[in-house]
C-alpha cells in the first residue's frame, strides 16, 4: 500500500534519512518507532507528498508520489486520513462542523445525510454528545478522538497516525488504542502509526520498524523486536538512557570547556 525505498532526505545539509526503506502492507497496522528527532514526522510528510525526497522513491497506492501533479496529490490524499499530534481541529468550527468539513468540501451529500454520517462517526468515538462544543472546550484526549472521527469520515483506505499517544492520560490513551485497533479490524483500514510508545504499539501492531540514524535499524513483529540482541534495539525497547543512542548531545570535553571559560 505504502512503499518507501532507499529514501534520502536532508534539511540545510543535515541528513535526516540515509537510505530509508520500509513498507506498510494492506489491512495491517504498521508501527514506525524511533527516538525523538529521528524524522518520524518528516517520514509522514514525505509519504503524504507535503515534501519531496532528495533521492529514492515513495509509492502510495502503487504510484510514485514524486511523479504526481498537485491534482493527483489531492486525489491521493482523499483516499488517506491523517491524525495529527496536536489534533489540528479547525478552531473556528465546532466539533460537528470539523467532522463534516471533508464531506462538505468533497461531496454533494444532502444535509440530513451529512448529519447522519457525522453523528455516526462521533458516536463511534464516543463524542456524539459533544457535537456542539468548540475545539477550545475539549480536553486533549477528546480533541484527538474528534480528529480521528474527522480522519475517517471519508472512509480512507490508509490512515496515518502521528504520535497518537503523546500527552494523553491512561484512560484517553486506552481509548485511542482501542479505536485504532477497531478501525483496522472492522473496516480493514491500513494503518501507519508513528510513535515512540513501545508498549502501546506492541499490543496492536502487525509489523514494526525501528528507525535510528536516518535508516531502519530493525524490522519485524513487536515480539521479534523485543527479543532482538542488537544494542540499539534493546536500548530503545527497554528504555535505557544511554547506549548507541547517546544521552549527551555532542560537546567538547567538559574539563576543557570549563577551564576555557575560566580563562576568558
Amino acid at each position: 500500500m505504502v512503499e518507501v525505498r532507499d529514501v534520502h532526505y536532508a534539511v540545510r545539509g543535515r541528513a535526516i534519512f540515509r537510505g530509508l526503506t520500509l513498507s506498510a502492507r494492506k489491512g495491517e497496522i504498521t508501527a514506525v518507532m524511533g527516538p525523538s528527532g529521528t524524522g518520524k514526522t518528516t517520514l509522514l510528510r514525505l509519504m503524504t507528498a507535503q515534501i519531496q525526497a532528495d533521492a529514492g522513491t515513495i509509492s502510495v497506492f502503487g504510484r510514485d508520489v514524486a511523479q504526481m501533479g498537485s491534482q493527483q496529490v489531492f486525489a491521493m490524499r482523499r483516499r488517506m486520513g491523517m491524525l495529527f499530534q496536536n489534533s489540528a481541529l479547525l478552531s473556528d468550527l465546532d466539533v460537528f462542523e470539523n467532522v463534516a468539513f471533508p464531506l462538505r468540501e468533497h461531496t454533494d451529500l444532502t444535509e440530513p445525510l451529512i448529519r447522519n454520517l457525522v453523528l455516526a462517526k462521533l458516536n463511534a468515538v464516543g463524542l456524539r454528545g459533544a457535537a456542539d462544543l468548540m475545539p477550545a472546550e475539549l480536553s486533549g484526549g477528546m480533541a484527538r478522538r474528534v480528529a480521528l472521527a474527522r480522519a475517517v469520515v471519508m472512509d480512507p483506505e490508509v490512515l496515518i497516525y502521528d504520535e497518537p499517544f503523546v500527552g494523553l492520560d491512561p484512560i484517553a490513551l486506552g481509548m485511542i488504542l482501542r479505536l485504532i485497533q477497531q478501525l483496522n479490524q472492522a473496516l480493514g483500514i491500513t494503518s501507519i502509526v508513528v510513535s515512540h510508545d513501545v508498549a502501546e504499539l506492541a499490543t496492536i501492531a502487525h509489523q514494526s520498524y525501528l528507525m535510528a540514524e536516518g535508516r531502519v535499524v530493525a524490522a519485524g513483529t513487536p515480539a521479534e523486536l523485543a527479543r532482538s540482541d542488537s544494542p540499539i534495539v534493546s536500548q530503545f525497547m527497554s528504555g535505557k538512557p544511554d547506549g548507541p543512542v547517546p544521552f549527551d548531545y555532542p560537546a567538547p570535553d567538559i574539563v576543557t570547556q570549563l577551564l576555557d571559560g575560566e580563562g576568558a
Partner: protein
Amino acid sequence: MNGVLRLTLLTDALARLGRMALFLFNLLLQCLRALGRPGLVVAQIYNAGGRSLVIIMLSGLFTGMVLALLGFNLLQRFGSQEALGFAAALALIKELGPVLTALLFAGRAGTALTSEIGLMNATDQLTAMKMMAVDPLRYVAAPRFLGGVIAMPLLTAIFDIVGLFGAHTIGVRMMGVDNGSFWSQMQAAVGLHDVTEGITKSLVFGFVCSLIAVYEGYHAEPTAEGVGLATTRTVVASSVLTLLLDYMLTAAFL
C-alpha cells in the same frame, strides 16, 4: 563587506517581492473560486469590517471634530468660516478618510488576520486542510483577502460620514457656522471626481493591506515569536505602503 550586505538585503527584498507576486497570482486564482462560496466571504467581511466598526466610527468622529476646530480657527482669520463644510468634506473624502481608515484597518483587522492565519499554521490546521485535499489558499486566505478588500471602502464611507457629522457638530452647533452655508458650500465644491479619488484610494489600500496581512500570516514561522514578528511586519508594511501609495495616488489624481 558593506557592499555584500547591501547586495544581500537587495536580493532578499527582491526574493520577497517575487514570492509575494506569486502568492498574489495564486490567491487571485483562488478568489474566483472563493466567490462561489459567498457565505465564507460574508463572514470575513463581518470579521474585518463589522468588528472594526466601533474603532472606525470613534476615530472618524474625533477626526471630524478636530478638523472643524482647526478649520474654523483658520478660516475665521480670512472671514470665510462658511467654507468649513467644504473644507472638512474635501479633507475627509479625499485624504483623511481613506488613509486613516487604512491605518486603523491595518492595526485592527490586519493584525487579527495575520495572527489568526499564523496560529492556524502553527497548530497544523493549514496542513490538516491540505491533507484533507482542501487548498487553504481557497478556504482560508482568499475569503479573508476578499473580505478585507470589500470591507475597506465600506469602512471608509462610514468614517467619512461620521467625520462629517463630527465636523458639523463642532462647526455648526458649537462654533456657530451657518447650517445652510455648511451644506451648500459642501454640495457646490465636492464633485464626483473627489469621491472617485476617495473610493479608488480605499480600494487600493484595502487590496494592499489585506494582501500583506494574509501573506504575512500564511508565511509566518510556526512559533509564538514567528507569529508575533509577522503581526508587527503587517502593521509596519501596511502603514508605510499606505502612506507611500497615498502620495502617488494623490499626485495621479491632481
